[in-house]
């Protein structure tokens, strides 16, 4: 509104128009042909004052549940985690959030160094050598990783497990639409991990990449990652691993079992859930020129001043990118989610290895406590019996309508229950996927179990 547009005074406009040498502002638009001019007035209300907008906004939000009064046990790609207050404080500094992509490194050392720290932290966490400065989300990171594998290997088949997050699969398929790629699915064992022999059968000399996730969409830690990697590599395929980053504080990182590319969702690292966005796509790979030069996205490097040994940071390997390579670029990504990557850098450095381990251990302990608690209920059954779960686990409910149960959990207990997997997987009509994290206490979990008992006995 008027206070946001400094040159809006009649006098100034006149003065400037005079200098330009035209009479009316409209003269500056005279090259817009009459026939396409917009004649009416946009049907957009306002201008509103801050005060009125705040009111309107809060009126709208009055039709949204109050999360501070609710216990959320839902995950599946975005998870409830605690966001340390430091993150919002730093991220609200306008030098950071009102800057553009650091095209002029000399005045952008702040964002550049922060992103360099992010890349370094992601590499420490995943055990990989290089990471880019972010992708939009796990799903697009996965899609770009597969495209990258296709470019690197010049092959056209991707092997994935039969169960991955439905939204990730959907995005992957969309992104591969333009290339004619075969996507092969490999079934799972009874414990929810990839069936190695089935995998072996499906990976061949046409395979560009083998993709697995750990923890899987079902929260299961994959057990045979070394073997899977070997199968991929033996066939000349790349080994792509999808990860939940907090799990890596206690579980072996992909770098330890030969992953070529790691993708994952950075939302647990200090981002809110925000109704699903924005998120943070993690993307890292081995240091191998063939891979590096095919990597999508921005990469930041440490260098020096031209005339001194003083450290400085800038974007590197831009020759891969669209603004130089255009149709032959490794990706079209331009604006990514840099600020979210900085959030993750703050989160990781604030918690440190001790804090991260504590969070991960608490999640692990909570997961197993909750898993056991729910299995103690008379009408539940485990889906994958000997699985090692992290953060999420599926529970089968005998003769229970999950949607109905969730409704009662919310109405009577202020609980957001597990995901109804029947929505996504035909054979899982009675299965709910629960999520527990460090924000939950034992008491919360006991309360969940009790609430489910009561809800289902209704």
């Amino acid at each position: 509104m008027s206070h946001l547009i400094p040159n809006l005074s009649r006098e100034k406009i006149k003065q400037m128009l005079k200098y330009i040498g035209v009479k009316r502002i409209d003269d500056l638009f005279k090259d817009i042909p009459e026939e396409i001019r917009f004649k009416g007035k946009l049907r957009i209300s306002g201008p509103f004052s801050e005060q009125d907008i705040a009111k309107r906004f809060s009126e709208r939000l009055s039709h949204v549940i109050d999360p501070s009064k609710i216990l959320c046990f839902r995950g599946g790609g975005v998870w409830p985690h605690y966001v340390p207050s430091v993150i919002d404080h730093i991220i609200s500094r306008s030098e950071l959030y009102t800057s553009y992509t650091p095209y002029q490194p000399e005045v952008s050392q702040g964002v550049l160094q922060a992103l360099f720290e992010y890349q370094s932290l992601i590499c420490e966490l995943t055990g990989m050598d290089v990471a880019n400065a972010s992708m939009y989300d796990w799903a697009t990171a996965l899609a770009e990783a597969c495209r990258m594998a296709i470019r690197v290997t010049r092959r056209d088949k991707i092997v994935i497990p039969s169960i991955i997050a439905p939204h990730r699969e959907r995005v992957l398929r969309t992104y591969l639409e333009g290339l004619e790629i075969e996507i092969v699915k490999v079934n799972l064992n009874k414990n929810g991990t990839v069936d190695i022999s089935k995998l072996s059968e499906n990976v061949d000399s046409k395979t560009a990449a083998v993709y697995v996730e750990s923890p899987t969409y079902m929260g299961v830690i994959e057990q045979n990652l070394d073997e899977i990697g070997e199968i991929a590599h033996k066939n000349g395929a790349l080994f792509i691993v999808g990860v939940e980053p907090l799990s890596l504080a206690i579980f072996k990182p992909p770098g330890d079992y030969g992953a070529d590319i790691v993708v994952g969702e950075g939302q647990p690292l200090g981002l809110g859930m925000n109704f699903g966005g924005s998120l943070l796509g993690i993307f890292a790979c081995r240091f191998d020129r063939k891979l590096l030069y095919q990597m999508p996205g921005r990469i930041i490097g440490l260098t020096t001043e031209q005339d001194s040994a003083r450290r400085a940071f800038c974007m590197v390997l831009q020759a891969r990118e669209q603004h130089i390579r255009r149709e032959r670029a490794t990706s079209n990504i331009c604006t990514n989610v840099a600020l979210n990557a900085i959030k993750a850098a703050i989160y990781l450095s604030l918690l440190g290895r001790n804090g991260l381990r504590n969070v991960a251990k608490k999640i692990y302990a909570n997961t197993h406590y909750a898993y056991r608690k729910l299995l103690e209920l008379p009408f539940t059954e485990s889906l994958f019996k000997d699985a090692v779960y992290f953060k999420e686990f599926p529970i089968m409910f005998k003769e229970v309508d999950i949607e109905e149960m969730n409704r009662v959990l919310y109405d009577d207990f202020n609980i957001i229950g597990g995901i109804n997997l029947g929505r996504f997987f035909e054979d899982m009509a009675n299965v709910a996927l629960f999520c527990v994290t460090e924000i939950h206490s034992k008491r919360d979990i006991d309360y969940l179990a009790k609430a489910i008992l009561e809800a289902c006995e209704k």
Partner: protein
Amino acid sequence: MSDENFRQAKWSEPLLVELEETPESAWYPDEVGEIDIPKHLIREKLDIPNISEPIVVRHFTRLSQMNYGVDLGIYPLGSCTMKYTPKICEELLKNRKIRDIHPLIEEEYVQGLLQVLYELSVFLAEITGAYKVSLQPSAGAHGELTGCLIMRAYHKLNGEDFRNEILIPDSAHGTNPASASMAGYKVVVIPSNEEGRVDVEALKEVVHPRKTAGLMLTNPNTLGIFEKDIVEVAKIVHEVGGLLYYDGANLNAILGKCRPCDMGFDIIHINLHKTFGTPHGGGGPGAGPVGVVKKLVDFLPIPTVEFDGEKYYLNYDIPYTIGKVHSFYGHIDVLLKAYIYILLHGAKYLEKIAEISVLNSNYLMKRILETSKGIELPYTDDPRKHEFVVSAKKLYKETGVRALNISKRLLDYGMHAPTMYFPLIVEEALMVEPTETVCKKDLDDYADAISKITEEAYSNPNVVLGAPYNTSVRRVDEVKASHPKTMCLTWKFLKRRL
């Protein structure tokens, strides 16, 4: 105003790994007893430093001071629309009813959020003339990919998947060809004419009734020039069965003045982080909603946000949908800021945005051209729109001072440089976009600085060539940064080298 009046903060801040550790403390305090993970799955070493909160906060606070943002001064990066972000947009977004809401929550619990998203999609449709808008794409380039995939799906449904070419002007942003190519298309470049506009004759030569899938264009184009032949261009493409894609990066200039779909575009994206003032965050998150004309509605990504007269809901039932391009529904945090931004302005001030951004741009252009020796305006003399591109080719020839050097020297004045060397069709290009949120004095100061710098280029070129001096670091060695032998992409590279 002289370069004596500015110095960026300089803290020589070490890397996180070089800061003092506090090995026995941890931010996350709950001590959890031992847990039993199967041995072969256990992680042994985790090399992330334990730094105490005060030191972490100091680290990032210092870093932030070494970064230039819109809140510090003019930031006329052409094509980027770096405008001031109203603080109310940030403030309202801090609500927990946004931050702590899970995406897979039952629709009836989040009616208010869905309503806002729906309203935003309606606003964006109104502004662009689109029939329906999907809020899902994460950025402009993502919108382009989405758009190209919609083209693909459309032609396929029509049994015309043989169409495999997308036409793109030589002045286009790199994301356009990159996106087209990602969607499996061959890119055909259309040259610009001597006016800096699409060469209609050349276009006619390359359109093809079986090959052309569509054309991608931004209007005003990247030279800041309005493509006044757009109606004819659209006709030519449509006549051979192609679709027109509008790159919305330059929408700021025409808000309320004309609408892309009224010009003949079939698919459009909008960079909310440009035209609608959501902050760019040093490289995102942004948002790139995509709108389409009626005939393409059935191809939009799932889900769209809809209203059935009673309740708001996510519509997954789109017959020929291209699928999903993002995990959930898009960058909600960014989308809501744009919603607030739009209501702050209303129809009236949205149009003022266009008017004043164009006024500022033309004023600054004239100021620069009149006072800076060696700087010239390529192509037509028509007024530019929200941005303009000048060339320092003459200056370079006469003094050895390049567009790059002017840019670096501008930093010494506490001002951000323009976009350099884009579009590619202008030699020694400086692409300047002041936006409507600067004041006249900013424009005058900017022109004065460029004038001084060009004078300096003639009188004392070495000073300009040695710039910048007042920034937290001086000229960065970008060649070394990308050289295989010296490349350093993480802390580990540094350790290995030592």
